[in-house]
């Protein structure tokens, strides 16, 4: 099947939905795709129907935004994985939930492909019960299911706070939050945030909620190891200043560790959009103008895929891209208020970033104490020591020699650590398929003719 639209939006989270709704309401034909079975993305993840009936919607505005997009006439295609690009360089290749191929062409393409969690290995991270904070949030939001009964959250970044609050709401005992940095001390760097009262209130609200529940926040603290036989039963923490030295062991039945998010840019890079590697994060960031327009004039990159900034910024970016496309298609000028909103939100993001250790600093902190025996790549069973033995400053050579990062996750889980251990490029090449794709889908596509 071939879909031709004015605009194709890849990714049904806050940015993609906002862009799609605005574009369709102005009369353009718009299709939005998402690989998940429901629109909403990670932030507006939809609760399962029975969960919604009993406990309501954790983020009502997400449902409203989806309804708005549908009402505006957006063709919604959840359950669609965009896995590649035809040789014409513009036809997106997808598979639907049933495994049938779908080809899509848009005069403009909006990539709102979101982000994935930044993980980092530690001894015992492969034990059942060890997850990312995002997974715990997903379980809580869509299934109203606690990841465990007694949980420690660890890693770094503001995201640990709302996840802890979601777990508290489910009655989970949150034994503590181990934050690698020291962001929750009022220093000079934090003062600038006072100019963003609404966003600051949100963060302060989480901190207050955690304080009421007497959840300790251990700042400057990192995970040393997780222990357990069939599943995690204890986590041992260390001071970030001396990461090899145990300071505290906590009994848990779940441990959620994450270090923020990395933009998902495979499709943007496959489409030939120019990207730069951010020195502080090591992430690929598409080069765009304020409206999200990439180096390729028909491709816009918005939301977390354009650089991590949170849901508010994602929606503002989605709207800005929609207006830029409308200006091009219909000649309507972009409302000037929008540019100001974007700048304001971007400023807040920069301020929050400054509160937490950068990924480069995290690597300096965590890598030296990481034991050689720790599993680094879980798909291909490669240890830290095996990668260190191939550390020549050329991550691609190390990957070829050890197979690290070459399994089904294609380095999404281990890539940050593998690149840190091996040295060299911090971003793995974008390859077809973006995710493993059914061969039966490829056969159907071959029978149809790839671009016909």
């Amino acid at each position, binding site marked *: 099947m071939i879909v031709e639209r004015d605009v194709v939006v890849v990714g049904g989270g806050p940015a993609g939905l906002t862009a799609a709704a605005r574009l369709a309401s102005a009369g353009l034909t718009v299709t939005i795709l998402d690989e998940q079975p429901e629109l909403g993305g990670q932030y507006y993840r939809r609760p399962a129907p029975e969960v919604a009936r009993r406990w309501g919607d954790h983020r009502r505005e997400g449902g409203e935004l989806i309804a708005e997009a549908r009402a505006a006439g957006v063709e919604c295609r959840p359950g669609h994985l965009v896995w590649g690009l*035809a*040789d014409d360089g513009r036809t997106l290749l997808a598979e639907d939930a049933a495994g049938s191929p779908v080809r899509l062409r848009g005069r403009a393409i909006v990539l709102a492909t979101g982000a994935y969690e930044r993980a980092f290995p530690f001894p015992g991270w492969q034990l059942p019960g060890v997850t990312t904070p995002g997974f715990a949030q997903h379980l809580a939001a869509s299934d109203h299911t606690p990841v465990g009964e007694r949980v420690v959250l660890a890693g770094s970044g503001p995201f640990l706070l709302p996840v802890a609050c979601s777990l508290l709401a489910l009655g989970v005992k949150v034994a503590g939050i181990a934050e690698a940095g020291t962001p929750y001390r009022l220093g000079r760097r934090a003062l600038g945030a006072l100019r963003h009262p609404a966003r600051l209130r949100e963060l302060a609200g989480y901190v207050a909620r955690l304080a009421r529940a007497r959840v300790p926040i251990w700042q400057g603290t990192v995970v040393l190891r997780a222990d357990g036989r069939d599943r995690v039963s204890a986590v041992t923490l260390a001071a970030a200043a001396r990461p090899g030295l145990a300071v505290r062991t906590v009994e848990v039945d779940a441990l959620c560790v994450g270090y923020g998010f990395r933009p998902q840019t495979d499709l943007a890079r496959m489409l030939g959009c120019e990207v730069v590697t951010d020195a502080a994060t090591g992430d690929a960031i598409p080069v765009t103008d304020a409206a999200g327009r990439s180096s390729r004039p028909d491709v816009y990159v918005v939301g977390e895929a354009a650089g991590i900034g949170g849901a508010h910024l994602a929606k503002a970016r989605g709207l800005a891209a929609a207006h830029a496309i409308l200006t091009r298609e219909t000649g309507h000028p972009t409302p000037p208020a929008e540019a100001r909103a974007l700048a304001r939100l971007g400023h807040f993001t920069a301020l929050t970033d400054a509160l937490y250790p950068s990924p480069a600093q995290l690597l300096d902190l965590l890598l030296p104490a990481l034991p050689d025996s720790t599993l680094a790549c879980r798909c291909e069973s490669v240890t830290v020591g095996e990668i260190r033995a191939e550390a020549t400053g050329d991550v691609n050579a190390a990957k070829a020699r050890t197979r690290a990062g070459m399994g089904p996750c294609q380095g999404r889980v281990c890539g940050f650590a593998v690149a840190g251990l091996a040295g060299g490029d911090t971003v793995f090449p974008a390859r077809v398929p973006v995710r493993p794709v059914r*061969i039966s889908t*490829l056969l159907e596509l071959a029978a149809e003719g790839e671009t016909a």
Partner: protein
Amino acid sequence: MNADVVIVGAGVLGAAAAWQLARGGSRVVIFDRSAPGREGSGTTAGNLHVQAVHTRRPGQEVPLDSARFLPLQRAASDRWESVEDDLETSVELRRSGGFTIAETPDQCQELKEKHTWEAAAGIPTEVLDGDAARAALPLLGPTVAAATWCERDGYANPLKVTPAYLAAAARHGAELVPYAPVREITRRGATWRVTAGEHVVETPVVIDVAGPWLGEIAALAGIRLRMTPVAIQMHATVRAPVTLSHLVQHIGEGLSVKQVTAGNLLIGGGWPAGSLNLAGRSATSTRSLLGNVALAVRVLPFIRDLRLLRAWAGPLAATPDEMPLIGEVPGEPGFLVAGGTYAFTFAPLWGETLRRLAEGAPPPVEIADLGPDRLMTQPMTHEGRQRC
């Protein structure tokens, strides 16, 4: 610095030659523009082709000469037997045999023809009709009309072979210098002077095994060789339970399939990549991906139920006549070249051949017709010499 031999290119041919020479007591220096084994030697599917290969990749203009190829394949096959013992490590070498299948009457005729050539070359193959082939390998699909079976076909992990040769060479004192692109090659009398990065080495023998850059390296020495590098692509499925222990190829179309030790199925057959990019990574072609995978499923229907994990492209140091290139450049004593398609299969043989040539000994197989003279289009300009 002085050396007995300078090898340009740390791919599988350079590595095999380095091990042969170092073991024989030569002082060997190997330069690579990047990491060793990164290009064709790291991106190849790792097949050991002993029975005749299909004569045309998709898009290949000139068919290769199977009858001439086969004695070389036989000689290479014999040498693979001892590779793991020689290198004192596992390279996941597997000699579990392979099928070459035919679907049309013409292809069946070709199978019979190649079978007689194989017999002449001392390669045992057996011709089976479609049902006999399916009885031997029930995974084969209904369109298979005939197949030849060769017990010597095999596989070795290309990501292990080149490093294993290099490590063994290093144990005998060979020096590998990666990330050192060769910038200048000049000759004064019997002495070659090779400049790579900060290094300058004087040597009586230069071996140009630079794969897709073979022509460029030769040109530094003022030698014009007509090479036609191309990029082809490979595909891997996710891991699956191990059910296919043989190599499966097609006599008339671009197809090779095998299951590697980890369980992934590798699907190749020389389909053209989207572009050849010698400065970075060559791009894959979706059209080739679909064509190659569809062909694989037609011959081995069980693949339909798997998922495709990744596709990648790599360069091939092809010659215009598709035949191997090996020998000394006429008029340039001590300048040896080796390359061409199927270099992975030929690596142990060409490694030994290059050592013999470097030592002034006769080669182990007849190579007079495979030399670089046939690719030299114009008289040498002797630029290299004038710089001395």
